[in-house]
């Protein structure tokens, strides 16, 4: 019985150390567990793949550095996919603190594919007031964003000459860590202007996104780091990139971490059950 009592009273610092070890070992020595793409990730991939060369993909960075491990790999994988297919990319964001991440991802990935700013991609940045921006772009992007993130008027950017509003955007992806995020785009850009939307979300909010997938309001869904690894897998499988994939690298650690949590939940509950049982017996 003492063993079960110990189970229920393990010092949480010991659990932290075990979890750290369990996560670090597979990062240093990967087991190579196979990662496959879900139908949800495949739908996002297919929608990007279906954009004709020269047409734009719009990506909204609705996250900040706190969600970087989950959503930044999605952003780089999607950018690699788009650039490899010669799809133009328009990046903007509803989260002010995420703008540095967008700039960094565009700078890194555009170099890999020799893409030119203004011709192949554009970074609109962030504007205050979420609703006027999202609704305004449905009428005219150049009115909502008169200039890009660097102050260059959109009128003078070659790529933006053929893009007036959402009607010229075949597919849109919101990489979202909360509100404002994919729900904002669904409510205002899709309901009103019929924008076709896919989403990449943090694992915490993935369960909330499923109803939108069920109704077809979301074309596809990437959930957490697993979703990012699935997209990386698809992009590599098609031969669009051979670059390092951070989310795929993390999947072994993620799997082992989950296994440890499962074991701890089972052991903790067994410990709790037996100690409760014995204390009841003592009371009787």
């Amino acid at each position, binding site marked *: 019985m003492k063993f079960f009592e110990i189970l229920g009273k393990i010092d949480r610092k010991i659990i932290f150390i075990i979890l750290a070890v369990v996560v670090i070992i597979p990062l240093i020595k990967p087991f190579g567990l196979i990662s496959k793409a879900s139908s949800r990730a495949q739908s996002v991939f297919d929608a990007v793949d279906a954009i004709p060369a020269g047409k734009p993909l719009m990506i909204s960075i609705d996250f900040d550095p706190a969600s970087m491990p989950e959503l930044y790999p999605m952003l780089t994988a999607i950018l690699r996919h788009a650039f490899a297919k010669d799809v133009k990319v328009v990046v903007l964001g509803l989260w002010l603190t995420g703008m540095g991440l967008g700039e960094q991802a565009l700078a890194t990935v555009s170099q890999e594919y020799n893409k030119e700013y203004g011709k192949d991609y554009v970074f609109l940045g962030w504007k205050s007031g979420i609703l006027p921006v999202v609704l305004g772009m449905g009428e005219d992007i150049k009115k909502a964003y008169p200039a890009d993130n660097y102050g260059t008027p959109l009128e003078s950017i070659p790529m933006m000459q053929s893009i007036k509003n959402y009607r010229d955007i075949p597919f849109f992806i919101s990489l979202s860590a909360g509100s404002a995020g994919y729900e904002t785009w669904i409510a205002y850009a899709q309901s009103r202007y019929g924008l076709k939307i896919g989403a990449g979300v943090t694992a915490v909010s993935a369960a909330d996104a499923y109803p939108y997938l069920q109704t077809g*309001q979301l074309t596809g869904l990437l959930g957490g780091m697993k979703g990012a690894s699935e997209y990386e897998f698809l992009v590599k499988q098609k031969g669009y990139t051979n670059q390092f994939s951070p989310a795929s690298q993390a999947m072994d650690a993620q799997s082992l971490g989950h296994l440890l949590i499962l074991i701890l939940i089972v052991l903790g509950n067994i410990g709790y059950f037996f100690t409760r049982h014995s204390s009841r017996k003592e009371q009787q």
Partner: protein
Amino acid sequence: MNSAHITLAQIIWIWIGAFLTFCIFSFLYKDNPLYRFAEHLFVGVSVGYSISISYHNVLYPDLIVPLFKHGQLLNIIPLLFGLCYFARFIPQVSWLIRLPMGLVLGFGAGASIPATLQASIIKQIQGAVLTPNIFKHWDFFVWALITFIGLICVVTYFYFSKERNKVTKLVAEGGVIFLMVGFGASFGYTVMARISLLIGRFQFLLRDWLHIIK
């Protein structure tokens, strides 16, 4: 980050990043001054960054340039409305804050009520019964049916206006099972998210700082 092309400035920032990571991790042992230093630094940097971006992306191009450089005097109206927010610091004219607040609330409510009704209520009710491709595969139909049954059970569980009879009690108990499955899925995803964040930090420490992994 490729260690072959790393500059001295990047090395310094990586070391600062590693130091701040350990400061935050130190909270796992107990609350301490290093943790609080990193926490306050994060808040300060976020606010400073936000002010800077707000000025350069919004205030300067959308107000200062049109008003003071191009002489577009109509921009005085949003400027005055914006300044009314600061009236709350002066008790005699603090009521002025109601003007911009009223404008924002009015616009927000007007724009969001029909949009939210359409996207989150009407479409969801419709989607609870008719899902795209419902008859494409047999499993699509089965999942749609389970979703529909789950919806009825859970809504019955939250119906409090009439005393439950045998049938509604049974349906409501079914609703509890669906709710528990939903909570379990959310908890599972939450665990996944937290471990992902931990992995992200370890990737930074092992790759960018120590160069142990690729």
